[in-house]
């Protein structure tokens, strides 16, 4: 009898400790433990190597695997689409801002991590095995200037945010796990409307325009406005649904992202100004 009570006590205590651990870590941490850093320093080179081999094999077998869905045609259209999007952005933003974006795009071509001012190019070295998440791990960390809440992008737009960072690695969550808001602007030369969005469970965004009478239509694109933590001009996606609330005070929208989370292999990390300030405060 006492033995079974003891066992129940142990199980209960373990559950309590694990629940506490989950509660403390589920929202991400500014710094991971020394043990995790040590574990990653051993494992991440192996993961990186295996990822590259796996991605290479996947890349060369892509046309064979997708023979029935006209992969070449798809790729060509996708590239053409990207080019057109860049042209629209180039026409909309000022020249200096456009040059910034071109530099970002150029940085994506680096095959290894390569710090350019505050931008860090990084490779995805592993992905969350669960089929319910799109989160992944990058081969850059505190040593490369990456901080919690750093923005992660590709040439197709916003990918996610860094939620946990170690010395040489960082964990990234995608839209469906992002609870904070991102301020946006409509990508248009003559219609100047802005608002805020947050990530939704479908891998896109939801939010609203500040102006309830904003002249927008389905198919319009939105970019980050530069207000708040994130830099201006990063593509967020295309508006797929517009709804007016009952009181007519808000114009809410649903936005679909251009990023294919299953296919991305290389990204660019942009540490936020606030995150940089906090890092300096911690160092001091």
């Amino acid at each position: 009898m006492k033995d079974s009570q003891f066992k129940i006590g142990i199980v209960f205590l373990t559950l309590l400790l694990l629940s506490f651990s989950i509660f403390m870590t589920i929202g991400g941490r500014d710094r991971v433990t020394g043990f995790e850093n040590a574990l990653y320093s051993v494992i991440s080179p192996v993961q990186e190597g295996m990822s590259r081999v796996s991605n290479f094999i996947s890349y060369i077998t892509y046309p064979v695997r997708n023979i029935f869905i006209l992969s070449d045609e798809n790729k060509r259209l996708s590239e053409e689409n990207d080019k057109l999007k860049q042209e629209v952005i180039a026409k909309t933003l000022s020249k200096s801002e456009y040059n910034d974006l071109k530099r970002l795009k150029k940085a994506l071509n680096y095959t290894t991590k390569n710090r350019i001012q505050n931008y860090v190019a990084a490779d995805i070295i592993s992905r969350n095995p669960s089929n319910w998440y799109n989160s992944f791990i990058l081969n850059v960390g505190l040593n490369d200037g990456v901080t919690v809440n750093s923005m992660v992008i590709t040439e197709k737009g916003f990918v996610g945010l860094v939620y946990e960072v170690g010395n040489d690695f960082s964990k990234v969550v995608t839209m469906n796990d992002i609870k904070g808001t991102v301020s946006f602007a409509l990508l248009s030369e003559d219609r100047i409307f802005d608002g805020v969005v947050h990530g939704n469970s479908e891998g896109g965004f939801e939010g609203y325009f500040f102006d309830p009478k904003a002249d927008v239509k389905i198919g319009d694109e939105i970019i980050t406005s530069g207000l708040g933590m994130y830099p201006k001009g990063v593509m967020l996606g295309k508006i797929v649904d517009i709804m007016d609330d009952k009181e007519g005070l808000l114009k809410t929208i649903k936005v679909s992202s251009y990023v294919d989370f299953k296919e991305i292999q290389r990204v660019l990390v942009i540490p936020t100004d606030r995150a940089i300030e906090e890092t300096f405060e911690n160092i001091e």
Partner: protein
Amino acid sequence: MKHFKLNIYKRKKGSISKEEISDIYISDPYLILFYILLLIVETTILHNLRIFGIAPNLILISLIVITMFFDRATILKSAFYAGLLTDLLTGRGIGIHIIFYFIVVLCILKFESIIFKDNYLPSLALIFMFTVAYNLYIVGINLFGLLREGLAYEFLVQSGVESLYNIITGYLFYKIVHFSVYGKRRDVVE
């Protein structure tokens, strides 16, 4: 994997009794290394082998197969190491997978006496059952983040495809472990 305490059984004739099966163990360093390697494969290679965007859950499969071949201590330690490493290397909260994997092995150990361990079919049935349970558990924990229209349908499709994928992978895994433990012996009931 020579660290299995098996050599004595390979020389025996006749089927192996349950008492003997429950005496087979894997030492801690090999167990940790095994799960690290499995996790590396799962987070790097399996991503490119997805079918309908879904990959098999190697850790869950291995854990269930291990319960069919090894002693209680190995099974419980497996659940702990597998859960801890999954949470540390990929997870979103340290403890989520430890709790689930402990529930899995404790359930299997609780009903050990009625589970026929000398055949691969019970393993496959358990893999199916716990794959659905795992998806339910993850969705339950992240319900707020995952709540959307058509979630129930998505859950059914995802659980169904993943179960099928896990069962096929589980069968191969069972055969490999069976071969590692018993070699080519034909007198061992499979």
